[in-house]
């Protein structure tokens, strides 16, 4: 048969569904733990069966019409009608999982229930009787372990077989064998309803529809266009039941389903007596991790651990990034273990001697009596010495050391590009475009791959092991104080990767006010791109103070909390506290492939962005930097006549109070709206004129040139770009998720205010503390801070 067979894969969240889907289709879908994240339906071809399409549905607990995931799944199951259902059930949590299974079974489609995690079930010493369950639910039941790759494919093949048989043997109009789950009076009512809707629905699913109508499912009732008179008649039956049992229809159905499941489990589930009511390993871990006093410190500590690894001076992140920036992507590097001394000197010493010689020559020729060299990292003068003609002549003789004599030298990509262009006879201008403009910018961003790799890896590990669900729970207490749903923390966590899906994940929040607030606040947590800014500034200005990086995360969370409190007090967002319900999946050691895929997907996005967004942006910037308004090509020293210089100068005054009121600072900040990491690339481009030996020194010199307090100016710049509105793509999504222009602008306006106010405070108050005196803007900063304080602590009439 060449007809396509469509199999729906349905199950609870955390049941291992995505792992199974990946195994069956060879896909690389990321295993999401959050409601509202996997709202897409994904499909794939079953391995080895080209005609079979497996449709992965979002993880759901039920088939009610209330959440987005349920609606999407329902629509697929009921309207598109797959040929069969593969229901994956968590064997270690079987009762709750069966709640959905009973509903799926009532659809009347051929179904195979795959009881997953059988390896854990066996280890726990529990026993499940598949046969009894199969008979009760009128479907096939098999055991699998998706993680260990046992039984998944067989289960899929079985369901395919059943689907094919169903098409051949029974026509779509035959009454199938479905389980009868409810009590006498309810079954009675359902039978009546089935009669009423005969002919309006496919016969095989008539029971499912009838039960939905009994539950007064608005969506179904409207869709079936049940007449008013008819509905009244049905209503009587329903009300009789409700009166008899003493509860409302929906609750009756829910209750009775669980009663049925309990009776079934009494017969078919034998839990290991020794485990009863004992704390599991997850429980023990949770005792510590959600402990009333320890929880928050533990979370902050894990953030610190992540940042320490990423940006601390001798940490893996920094070491690798330095190598990437200066070596791999820059001039070149020695293969490890191949370096040796030449003439009693090693490579660093030889380089240092040559640098001193160069400085001596330059100083003497400029008529100076003293020469100096700067420390690569701090930009401060490291050594100064007197020079005379003899010293000058001696210095002229010093040859530039050849790195390949000191070990196996691998030229950096930058060096390779430069020499290739030189060999091709390319003009200096075009060479500058390629090397300084395009490659310079892209290399800046790519150089930080090691740092953000560490961050993404850490996040992936924490999410995949289940810890992040606990964090959402811990944070809820803080978030609840201002009407944010506990679910609001999830977008914020997603925001550590990218703000765009974070804002979209806010869709899962039903309460409109809470959803809006979440959209506004989610992007204050530094995303992957903003992490690059943090990494660069940590490397250039805060090598010893690596905690500055961690502080940016803390500040982000603080803004969310304090900003939320302030927003809730305005008339736009006032409201009541909401509920919080979240399943905590058992902790498990993440699989290497899972963590790898999760990390790699983010990393790949980052690198793709470098090629597709940063690259053209840098090319454009190079052009506006090297041409004036009449489109004359400018020499390097004439950069003040360039288009970019003028554009930047027009708005530079805005950034004056923040400490970086120069055309370069303005250009960098504005360019950050294309992509946040562009700020680093732009900074590199516009400061290339300011001398410096290492790749970052000219940026240090730049900040030293524009402010008497370069570290503060740098901190202010960083803070500004981290906490103003996110990149344009994220802003576009914000507008879309808010649904109206008005709310979009409120969001952007709030974010602009916060970013500016924070940078202003940091710089002005920092300068004040550092002894820079009190000025007009110091006063403004204090006033702004007092305003914010008032907005947070004021009392509002409820």
């Amino acid at each position, binding site marked *: 048969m060449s007809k396509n067979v469509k199999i729906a894969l349905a199950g609870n969240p955390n049941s291992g569904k995505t792992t199974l889907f990946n195994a069956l289709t060879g896909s690389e879908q990321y295993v999401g733990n959050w409601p509202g994240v996997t709202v897409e339906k994904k499909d794939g071809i079953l391995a080895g069966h080209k005609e079979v399409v497996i449709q992965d549905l979002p993880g759901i*607990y*039920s088939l*009610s019409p*209330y959440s987005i995931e349920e609606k999407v799944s329902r629509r697929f199951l009921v309207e598109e009608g797959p040929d069969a259902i593969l229901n994956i059930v968590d064997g*270690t*949590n*079987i*009762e*709750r999982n069966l*709640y959905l299974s009973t509903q799926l079974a009532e659809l009347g489609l051929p179904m195979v229930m795959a009881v997953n995690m059988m390896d854990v079930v066996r280890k726990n010493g529990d026993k499940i009787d598949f046969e009894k369950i199969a008979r009760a639910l009128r479907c096939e039941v098999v055991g699998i372990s998706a993680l260990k790759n046992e039984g998944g494919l067989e289960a899929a093949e079985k369901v395919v077989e059943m689907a094919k048989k169903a098409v051949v043997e029974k026509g779509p109009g035959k009454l199938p064998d479905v389980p009868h789950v409810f009590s006498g009076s309810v079954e009675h009512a359902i039978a009546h309803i089935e009669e009423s809707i005969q002919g309006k629905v496919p016969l095989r699913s008539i029971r499912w529809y009838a039960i939905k109508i009994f539950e007064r499912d608005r969506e179904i009732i409207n869709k079936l266009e049940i007449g008013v008179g008819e509905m009244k008649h049905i209503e009587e039956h329903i009300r009789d039941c409700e009166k008899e049992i003493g*509860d409302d229809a*929906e*609750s009756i159905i*829910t*209750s009775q389903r*669980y*009663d049925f499941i*309990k009776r079934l489990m009494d017969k078919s589930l034998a839990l290991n007596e020794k485990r009863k*009511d004992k*704390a599991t390993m*997850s*429980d023990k871990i*949770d*005792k510590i991790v*959600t*402990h*009333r006093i320890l*929880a928050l410190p533990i979370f902050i500590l894990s953030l610190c651990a992540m940042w320490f690894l990423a940006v601390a001076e001798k940490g893996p992140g920094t070491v690798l990034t330095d190598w990437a920036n200066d070596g791999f992507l820059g001039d070149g590097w020695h293969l490890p273990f191949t370096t040796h001394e030449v003439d009693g000197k090693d490579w660093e010493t030889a380089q240092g001697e040559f640098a001193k010689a160069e400085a001596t020559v330059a100083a003497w020729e400029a008529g100076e009596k003293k020469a100096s060299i700067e420390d690569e990292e701090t930009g401060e003068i490291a050594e100064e010495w007197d020079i005379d003609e003899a010293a000058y002549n001696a210095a002229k003789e010093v040859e530039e050391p050849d790195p390949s004599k000191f070990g196996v030298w691998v030229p950096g990509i930058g060096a390779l590009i430069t020499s290739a262009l030189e060999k091709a006879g390319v003009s200096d201008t075009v060479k500058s475009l390629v090397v300084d403009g395009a490659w310079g910018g892209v290399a800046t961003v790519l150089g930080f791959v090691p740092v953000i790799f560490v961050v993404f890896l850490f996040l992936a590990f924490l999410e995949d092991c289940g810890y992040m*669900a*606990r964090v959402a*729970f811990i944070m*809820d*207490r803080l978030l*609840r104080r201002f009407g944010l749903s*506990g679910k609001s923390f999830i977008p914020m966590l997603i925001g550590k990767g990218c703000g765009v899906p974070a804002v979209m994940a806010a869709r899962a929040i*039903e309460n409109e006010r809470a959803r809006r607030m979440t959209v506004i606040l989610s992007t204050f947590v530094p995303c992957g791109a903003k992490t690059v800014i943090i990494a660069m500034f940590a490397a250039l200005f805060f090598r010893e103070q690596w905690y500055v990086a961690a502080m940016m995360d803390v500040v982000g969370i603080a803004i969310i909390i304090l900003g939320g409190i302030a927003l809730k007090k305005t008339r736009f967002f006032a409201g009541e*506290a*909401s*509920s*919080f*319900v*979240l*399943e*905590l*999946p*058992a902790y498990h050691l993440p699989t290497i492939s899972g963590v790898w895929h999760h990390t790699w997907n983010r990393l790949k996005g980052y690198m793709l962005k470098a090629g597709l967004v940063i690259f053209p942006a840098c090319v454009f910037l190079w052009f506006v930097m090297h041409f004036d308004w009449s489109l004359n090509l400018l020499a390097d020293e004439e950069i003040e006549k360039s288009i970019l210089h003028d554009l930047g100068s027009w708005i530079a005054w805005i950034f004056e109070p923040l400490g970086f009121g120069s055309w370069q600072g303005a250009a960098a900040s504005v360019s950050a709206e294309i992509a946040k990491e562009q700020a680093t690339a732009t900074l590199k481009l516009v400061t290339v004129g300011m001398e410096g030996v290492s790749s970052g020194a000219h940026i240090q010199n730049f900040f030293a040139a524009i402010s008497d307090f370069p570290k503060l100016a740098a901190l202010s710049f960083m803070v500004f770009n981290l906490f103003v509105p996110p990149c344009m793509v994220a802003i576009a999504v914000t507008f879309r998720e808010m649904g109206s222009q008005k709310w979009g602008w409120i969001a952007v306006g709030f974010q602009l205010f916060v970013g500016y106010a924070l940078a202003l405070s940091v710089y002005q108050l920092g300068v004040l503390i550092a002894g820079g005196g009190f000025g007009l803007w110091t006063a403004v900063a204090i006033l702004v801070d007092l305003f914010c304080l008032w907005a947070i602590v004021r009392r509002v009439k409820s």
Partner: protein
Amino acid sequence: MTLAEMKEGDRARIVRVTGEEAVKRHLGALGFVAGTIVRVVGESYGNMILAVHESRIAVNDATAKDVEVSNV
């Protein structure tokens, strides 16, 4: 008596779930129905982690107050 009054280690039988419809349904789907026995695995500042069947469900104090229980 509501869940909010339970302490760590306590077991209770659910009598009724009140409160917002949406929350009621969600809790219902998770197993919070009359007759189910839940155990308090952890508690801090009113937020609780409950063992329901074999799963672990975290709820905040506002939600816990909406679940009426009886002693076991």
